[in-house]
């Protein structure tokens, strides 16, 4: 609750800071400080400190899982600010508004990771989506950005419609918005409930860009300004995943057997389409868009398994995925040429940045000693331990092997090919931060307990 209110206030504050503060560095400083305060207050809430005494029973419940995820999401946003806040200046003139929108999105993330009523879920998802439509179109003189924004808005509204319809049907069947009261153990689910469940599933699948609802993703991610793609492909997607799992665990966990096959098919399709299409991309940015679909396929395995290994794993997965992808995008933003050829000879000019990029790519590919490996390991482990679906696991590992192809193309370009990669110079502080993120990726790959021991404390 602390973080929710503070981040909403921060959003408003940032909105007006554009009028009051003239210096861009001051605005940036304010945003960073505000986020840091929010993180600290959120951590204090884990230890039982409540800044506001608001009774939200039945609407939201800040359990350990959601508080912990909120910390991860905000910490990743903090890293994102540190690495890319300067790049936002180049997008357009409304510098402070971008921060305001991101703080609103954070409020939405907190809502959708902590809801216990379907209404709050809807509210959370919408508060995430609407600022995203704006951010996507924020490069307003760029036709591609406009197109992406419009596309995202139209399709996004459509999926929101699906979600509302799903919520209505579920309400019609159960007479309650509370996620714990939707299914009654022992009774057979009726048609209304199943229909509502499917609509909810499809709209969530749309939001996490799972196939066959993924078609908006490449265009939107490609068209949006790269800094914002970085944000929406990582933290936002992770948050929607948490909402997905939370919804299906609490609301539909008891009728798991009725829908798990559909999720398995969606997972398989997502893995297949995401990985295969990523292979054919010529632009690293678009490749990362498809890779985010492919990674979503792996994360869906946690929804499929719906056990404790899966929910532990999704926390590790989102952390690993967010850190690596944010790091990669932070480097990509600094490139002049987004194609694979644009990376030729990168290692010679920027040995440090190339080195950390390799760590991020290895982590995304799931090579041991990086957080990405253990994340994938958790997902496979979760599905195997839930029993069944071995075909899916085998498909998933084969697809992971394919993913090596397109991730390693970047490594090959950077290290093994000659060329003059055009890079905008990176500051020393940027290098420090990005090295620390890379170190964290390796640390989590060797000692994931660091994350979990804190989770269970």
């Amino acid at each position: 609750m602390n973080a929710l209110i503070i981040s909403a206030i921060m959003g408003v504050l940032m909105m007006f800071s554009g009028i009051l503060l003239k210096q861009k560095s001051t605005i940036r400083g304010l945003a960073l400080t505000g986020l840091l305060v929010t993180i600290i207050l959120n951590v204090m809430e884990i230890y039982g400190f409540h800044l506001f005494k608001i009774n939200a029973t039945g609407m939201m419940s800040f359990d350990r899982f959601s508080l912990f995820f909120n910390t991860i999401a905000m910490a990743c946003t903090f890293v994102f600010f540190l690495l890319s806040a300067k790049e936002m200046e180049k997008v357009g003139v409304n510098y402070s508004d971008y921060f305001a929108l991101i703080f609103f999105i954070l409020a939405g993330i907190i809502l959708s990771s902590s809801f216990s009523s379907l209404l709050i879920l809807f509210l959370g998802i919408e508060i995430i989506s609407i600022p995203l439509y704006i951010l996507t179109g924020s490069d307003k003189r760029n036709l591609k950005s406009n197109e992406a924004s419009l596309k995202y808005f139209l399709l996004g509204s459509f999926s929101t419609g699906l979600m509302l319809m799903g919520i209505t049907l579920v309400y019609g069947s159960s007479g309650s918005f509370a996620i714990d009261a939707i299914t009654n153990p022992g009774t057979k689910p009726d048609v209304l409930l199943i229909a509502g469940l499917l609509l909810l599933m499809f709209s969530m699948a749309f939001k996490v860009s799972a196939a066959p609802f993924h078609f908006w993703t490449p265009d939107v991610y490609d068209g949006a300004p790269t800094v914002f793609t970085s944000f929406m492909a990582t933290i936002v997607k992770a948050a929607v995943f948490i909402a997905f799992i939370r919804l299906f665990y609490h609301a539909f966990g008891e009728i798991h057997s009725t829908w798990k096959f559909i999720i398995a098919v969606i997972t398989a399709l997502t893995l297949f389409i995401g990985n295969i299409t990523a292979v054919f991309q010529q632009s690293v940015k678009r490749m990362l868009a498809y890779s985010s679909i492919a990674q979503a396929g792996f994360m869906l395995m946690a929804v499929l398994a719906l056990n404790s290994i899966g929910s532990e794993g999704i926390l590790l997965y989102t952390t690993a995925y967010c850190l690596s992808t944010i790091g990669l995008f932070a480097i990509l933003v600094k490139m002049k040429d987004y194609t694979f050829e644009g990376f030729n000879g990168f290692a010679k000019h920027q040995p440090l940045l190339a080195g950390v990029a390799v760590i991020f790519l290895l982590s995304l590919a799931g090579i041991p000693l990086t957080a990405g490996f253990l994340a994938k390991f958790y997902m496979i482990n979760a599905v195997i331990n839930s029993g069944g679906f071995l075909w899916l696991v085998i498909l998933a590992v084969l697809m992971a092997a394919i993913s090596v192809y397109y991730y390693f193309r970047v490594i090959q370009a950077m290290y093994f090919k000659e060329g003059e990669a055009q890079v905008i110079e990176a500051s020393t502080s940027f290098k420090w931060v990005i090295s620390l993120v890379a170190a964290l990726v390796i640390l989590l790959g060797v000692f994931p307990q660091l994350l979990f021991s804190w989770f269970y404390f």
Partner: protein
Amino acid sequence: MIALLLILVPLLSGIAAFFLKKENAAKGWALLSSFATVTVSILGLTILNKTELLQFKCSWLPGLGSSFSIQLDGMGQILCLLTAISFPLIFIATWQRSYKNAHNFFALMLLSQAGLMGVFLAMDALLFYFFWELALIPVYFLSSIWGAERRIAATFKFFIYTFVGSLLMLVGLIYLQSLTPDRSFDIKAFYSIAIDSKTQNWIFWLMFIAFAIKIPVFPFHSWQPDAYEQSPTAVTMVLSGIMVKMGLFAVIRWLLPVLPSASYAYGEEMISMWVIVGMIYASLLAWRQDDMKRLIAYSSIAHLGLMVVAIFSESEIGMQGVMLQMFNHGINILGLWVVVEILERKYGTRKLSELGGLAQKAPAMAILFVVVALANIALPLTNAFVGEFMMFTGIFTSPVSAYEMITVPAAGLTIIIGAVYTLRMVQKVIYGNTNALTETGTDIGYNEKLVLGIIVILILIVGVYPQPFLDLTKETTDFILDKAILPSLKK
């Protein structure tokens, strides 16, 4: 402690080597580190050979049922000794070669050594998988950066091949873990699970494909000649001398005792037959090669195939032969690569058709080369004779096989073809008349004499007195076979 040092010495010195900017400093540092590893390995075999020193265990990922558990058993001793000995020999043999960004080269070499040691030491399935990949990544970078013309495609093929295999193995390992009562990756837990034969069958394939790719077994071998040819020779030595042993080793430690009924069901008929077909095929290909690197690569497929057949024959003498032969093959192929390296550096070619008459110009090299080549054919008095003799005896007296009358002659055929292509190589390189290229040839230097000398001495010592090695592997062999041979087949 010894076990831990075998990993830590190369790992830490490898990381340190990244920061040495001067080429000679990096070379010297790598050599020093590899000597330290040899010392540790020999100490572990002799005066510090105590059980408590040879194992190490500490908590690592308790939530996943995995621990950092390493131990040096008889088979591990032999393979760690091979890994330890190979690296200084590789460094000395390639001393004259200069590399761009040498510090990175030597750092990655040492890291791959650490990974290999870890594979041979791991007593925990997840740890084993970690090291399995850790050994691969540095080799991928070594070959891709310092390799030949077509290096990027060749090493990428190699990487994808092995990565697909190891991911399938990972699924197998996780499934096995889910079958253990306390959800543990510990090797003892793996050895004690009883799995019904249907489940065993498909887990067997998940894991065996990974190992078959690494060994490589026909038809998964196509990455190998390309990777050997395109890698810098120092890396080819690591790949062929040590890395391929990972696959054989893994079959013995992680497959036979864990999945005995599937190993029996597929191993001694189907796999042995197709391996033998692959051996004959590879031998015939080796016969027709002009490039020495490719010739040796194909010959390696044939030699390793015999070891696979011997493993699945599940007899004591055959299994001991395999463990001994893994060491021997590593030493012998290293010798052959050293010769290739010398020829390539001096004459700029590896083609048999362009060489000749070197016996007149480089007598010392010729003598040493012939001994190594004879060991490759497994002539008596050389180490390979002991190993191959034991393996053939094992296959012939196998308690599980019913087809020894087919397998032994067929596999024996590859020995004959082996003599043909090895002698053809020797003949084309060192006999005959000199040509324009070899006319100005000189004999080898001291460091090369030293390396080849050590290899020849090892060949002869093991060839004459292999008993210490057999004593070393006896216990492991008995243990493995006790688990592997089905109760109904025990005599």
